[in-house]
């Protein structure tokens, strides 16, 4: 239990640290945000004045930070200067979209990686293993940007998949099934990019973990006892390889989230990524801070999830009482 508690505390401290850091960065921005806004004819002087009063942008930093923390605790994440509205709802929608993408990609990646990795491990040294190794090695040298752009070009030239956005224009009019199909078509490319970029590492890890168990003495003993292959694989090898694989799981959530930033931007998927970019270019302070915070929360949650799973799966961690 203390293991989990400690992890939780670490996560919280991390979040606090990140929020302070991002808040600090905002102060590096030369010039007052409101000054820049003054140049925007769409915003009246009255709005400016009230904003200034509301956000006390002239007050000292710790004061502003405390105020912001207080606001966040009440679910209020500030005001978006670019979108002319509160930040929170904006973030929620985008976050949902990002999660949709990331979780789908994650599930798919694992669904593919597990059988591939296990098969590789079983047939290690032989053709299937070699072929898979070659494929993963090739994928590993292709960075996400190149991959995403490549997929995009393929889609654009072939016309098989839409090249941007989350839904088509007539989405609302579609039937239930049509809506699902439309969404899936739009998701296909970004998910493919994410899966392809995550796959090589996953496959390699799984292969290594399983191969190690397959070569272990206890496994050989079990084989000698005549236990059928399927049972061997699932009962014994996978169980033993579960530990590193679970760690990998928690870890891969984080990396996928980061990769999704890039993919979202390239493929115009309306997630946190493009929002963050726009906000940065538009100097939309609170959106940036909110966006970075959200992503960090996801990351930390992913890691914590990994810890939870590990705790549940590995009795050693439980009994050790969290002692290192």
């Amino acid at each position, binding site marked *: 239990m203390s293991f989990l508690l400690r992890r939780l505390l670490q996560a919280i401290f991390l979040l606090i640290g990140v929020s302070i850091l991002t808040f600090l960065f905002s102060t590096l921005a030369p010039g007052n945000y409101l000054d820049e806004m003054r140049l925007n004819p769409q915003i009246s002087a009255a709005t400016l004045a009230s904003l200034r009063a509301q956000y006390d942008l002239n007050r000292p930093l710790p004061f502003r930070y405390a105020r912001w923390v207080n606001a966040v605790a009440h679910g209020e994440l500030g005001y978006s200067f670019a979108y002319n509205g509160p930040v929170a709802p904006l973030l929620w929608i985008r976050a949902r979209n990002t999660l949709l993408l990331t979780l789908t990609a994650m599930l798919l990646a694992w669904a593919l990686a597990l059988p591939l990795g296990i098969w590789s491990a079983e047939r290690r040294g032989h053709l299937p293993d070699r072929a898979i190794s070659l494929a993963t090695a090739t994928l590993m040298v292709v960075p996400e940007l190149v991959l995403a752009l490549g997929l995009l070009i393929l889609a654009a030239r072939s016309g098989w998949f839409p090249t941007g956005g989350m839904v088509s224009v007539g989405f609302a009019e579609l039937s239930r099934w049509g809506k699902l199909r439309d969404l899936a078509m739009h998701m296909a490319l970004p998910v493919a990019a994410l899966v392809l970029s995550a796959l090589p590492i996953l496959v390699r890890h799984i292969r290594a973990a399983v191969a190690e168990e397959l070569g272990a003495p206890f496994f050989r003993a079990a084989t000698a006892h005549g236990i059928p292959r399927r049972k061997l694989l699932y009962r014994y090898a996978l169980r033993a390889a579960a530990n590193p694989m679970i760690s990998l799981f928690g870890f891969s959530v984080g990396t996928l989230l980061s990769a999704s930033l890039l993919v979202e931007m390239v493929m115009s998927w309306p997630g946190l990524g493009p929002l963050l970019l726009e906000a940065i*270019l538009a100097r939309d302070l609170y959106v940036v801070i909110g966006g970075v915070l959200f992503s*960090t929360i996801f990351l930390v949650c992913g890691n914590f999830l990994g810890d939870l799973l590990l705790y549940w799966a590995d009795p050693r961690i439980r009994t050790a009482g969290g002692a290192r």
Partner: protein
Amino acid sequence: MDRRRVRRWFVALLVLHAVVGGAGFLAPYDPVKQDREHAYLPPMRVHFLGRGHLHLRPFFYAERLREGTFDEFEEDTEKAIPLRFFSTGEQYRLLGFLPSRRHLFGAEGARLYLLGSDGLGRDQLSRMLYGGQISLLAGLLGAGGTIFVAAMIGTVAGFYGGWRDTLLMRLAELFLALPWLYLLFALRAFLPLTVSPLRAFLLVVVVLAAVGWARPARLVRGVVLSVKERDFVRAARGFGAGDAYLVRRHILPETRSVLLTQAAILVPQFVLAEMTLSFIGLGIPEPVPSWGNLLAILQQYSVLVSYWWMYLPALAIVPFFVGYQGLANALHVDGVTVKIEGKRGGTHHDIGTRFSPAQTD
């Protein structure tokens, strides 16, 4: 560590860098020179067979607009232009200071766009080569800066311990927990948006160095901690050696291999980070080419559909990834497994290295 393997990869990398470094010589044209008559030309072919017989000297045909269109080109078979090698062309400066006019190949009368041209008629091949100089330089400098910062921080944390260690390592954990790319963007964006190319370049380098120091610093700290307790360090203290001497003479040399392997991982990561930054417009601005801003045009749908050769600069980085990955593997580095092994005590697998700035660790 298999020294021969390391050396082979190192040589391979050297050759790759030399190709980019020799951009002035290898590129037929000035990357900035426009030719709006020949915008968006697809890659041109070089022929050896013409009018029925084989030519020793390769040649190409000038391109002309197809009848009735204003953006489709075709070969003008009337105008065959021979390719000249080691020809004189526009002036450039090799390695930035040696002026020369000699190019690997060139032609009179028309331009040979081996990899096509962009929307302003600029030669993509030349832009790729020159762009590589910028991107690689940013990557190398960024990695160098990071290694330097990491070495300093890691040494201070490991050597002095105490509150310095705790503070620095907590800071490192913080930086590691932040999504790499987000932090990069945020940092870059909070600095002035439009600056001169040189300043933008320096900014990119500084930002890269500021973001990537955490993991190498932790590794250096680990080495310093273990070396600090070695008897030969104690013995040197016994001779009256001061802290600075101990660090310089005994401790830092031990960190060399860790730093080298980290450098092999970081350089491609940073090149990719520069590419990403420039791609979205926060990096090197026009007209200076970099692999990133060469790809920026692909954000337009029309380009995506019609002008496939604009994608080619994206592939330029792949051989470098192969090279650096080979080097890192030869130096026995696990890129991804470090975190898993360190934090959770899982098994240690050498699965090779994955370079990606989107990786948080």
